[in-house]
């Protein structure tokens, strides 16, 4: 059963028609990326999936059932969002951010295990547990943002520009980490400006332009497509 089925999605911000009839599917265990230029509507789709931004048309199915319509209920159903620009609780410590990630969990043992797993993925966080999140470096903040989302033990992970502001080498590690997370059984929907690397690790991808999906295919097909190479991959 597909993890996510989005059908004919429309989102408006007042008079601005940001998402104009978008449909896509994410199968369980897939990494799917959405690539597109600035203002295409990618983040809007992510916020809509988290039920923070209301949709004005269309349907969203999560594992075959309608997506609940409040953010905290979406989390309960196993969806976690790492938003653009991270949005950490900057006045809280690293540990408290992770505790918040596990807020709705009823299994303390599982949460403790997941915290250890985050330290395996990002060892630096373990040394920074007492530090305020707002004082971490950009890269450390990104690691914390991903870890915070993983702490809810989601089945579907929504990543909005996780590579933003990271050094190229760290981006590479990040992509490997995303593959690792998927191999542990998670479904990943990835939005990236870094199209080459995103498509590289993706099973499938969608290209967005001004609120519409203009192309779709496997990660390989898209990164080999001459039009896409010219516009998004720099030649």
């Amino acid at each position, binding site marked *: 059963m597909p993890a996510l089925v989005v059908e004919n999605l429309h989102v408006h911000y007042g008079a601005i028609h940001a998402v104009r009839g978008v449909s896509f599917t994410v199968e369980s265990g897939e990494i799917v990326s959405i690539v597109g230029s600035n203002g295409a509507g990618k983040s809007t789709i992510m916020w809509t999936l988290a039920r923070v931004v209301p949709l004005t048309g269309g349907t969203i199915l999560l594992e075959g059932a309608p997506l609940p319509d409040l953010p905290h209920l979406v989390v309960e159903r196993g969806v976690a969002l790492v938003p653009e620009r991270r949005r950490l609780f900057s006045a809280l410590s690293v540990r408290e951010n992770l505790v918040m*990630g596990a807020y709705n969990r009823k299994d303390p043992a599982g949460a403790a295990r997941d915290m250890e797993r985050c330290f395996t993925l990002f060892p630096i966080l373990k040394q920074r547990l007492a530090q305020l999140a707002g004082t971490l470096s950009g890269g450390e903040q990104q690691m914390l943002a991903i870890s*915070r989302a993983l702490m809810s033990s989601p089945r579907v992970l929504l990543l909005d520009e996780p590579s933003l502001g990271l050094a190229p080498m760290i981006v590479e590690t990040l992509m490997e980490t995303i593959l690792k997370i998927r191999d542990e059984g998670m479904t990943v929907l990835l939005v990236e400006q870094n199209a080459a690397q995103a498509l590289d690790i993706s099973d499938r991808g969608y290209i967005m332009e001004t609120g519409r999906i203009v192309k779709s295919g496997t990660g390989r097909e898209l990164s080999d497509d001459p039009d896409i190479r010219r516009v998004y991959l720099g030649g």
Partner: protein
Amino acid sequence: MFLQTLVTGLSIGGIYALMAVGYSLVFSVLGFSNFAHGAVIMLGAYLGLALAVKLHLGIGLVLVGSIVGSGILAVMNERLAYSVLRRRKAPSLYLMISAMGCSVFLENLVYATIGSRFYAFPEFFSRQVVQFAGSSLSLLDLAAFIVAFLAILALHVFVTRTKTGIAIRAGVCDMTMCSLMGVNVDRLIMVVFLLAGAFAGVAGVFLGVKYLVYPTMGWVTNKAYIAAVIGGLGSLPGALVGGLILGVVETFVSTYVSSVMRDVFSFTLLIALLVWMPNGLFGSDTEEKV
């Protein structure tokens, strides 16, 4: 004389701090000045008075009754007057206006039903004194200070050690992300008002016992507002320290200078401090890194 004045100042400061905490909590979570907080304090005092006079309860049970009653009242206040605006994402100015409306409504409700008379609490221990280092210190003043201190300490432990408390602080940072952690925002805000109301109840009883109970007694929350700003809006240690500083300074000014100068001093202190430290003593401004 000095020690006596100091203890009186600390007790008044403790009451300011109790009021400042409730005020500060709502401000930091919802971003508006809850002017109805003073009215909740006033009703808490009336409730405590009723329990003391009609049911002849002791100070302990009076406090418990007022805490519960004011807590529920504050939650109802939020449900009836703020939640609709909040869900429509109305600008905070609208919430503030709604709060002023609530304040006027509740005060006039008391005028219309109970009347404008001033009431005094039965004397629990207002005349009792303890001798210490040659000064006679009022037991009431000591109790007010100690209860205020312990209540704020308890709240501090709550917001730093419990999951709900951490969620409140997370909500202060970013309420949207807080909901994306699985927090039911409506329920969290209910807890915040319950806490603010509970603190209003304690403040109302001590204010009533120390002075009198009357419909506009909640106006002293102006002072609590100053205390909260001095300490740094949204900071708990700030509310405590700001309240204590204000209470002590005021008492010393009225004792050693003149009571007419008291409020001039408070406001001068506020303005001077804000010029030097725009965020107050404990206010923070951690910025998001991009």
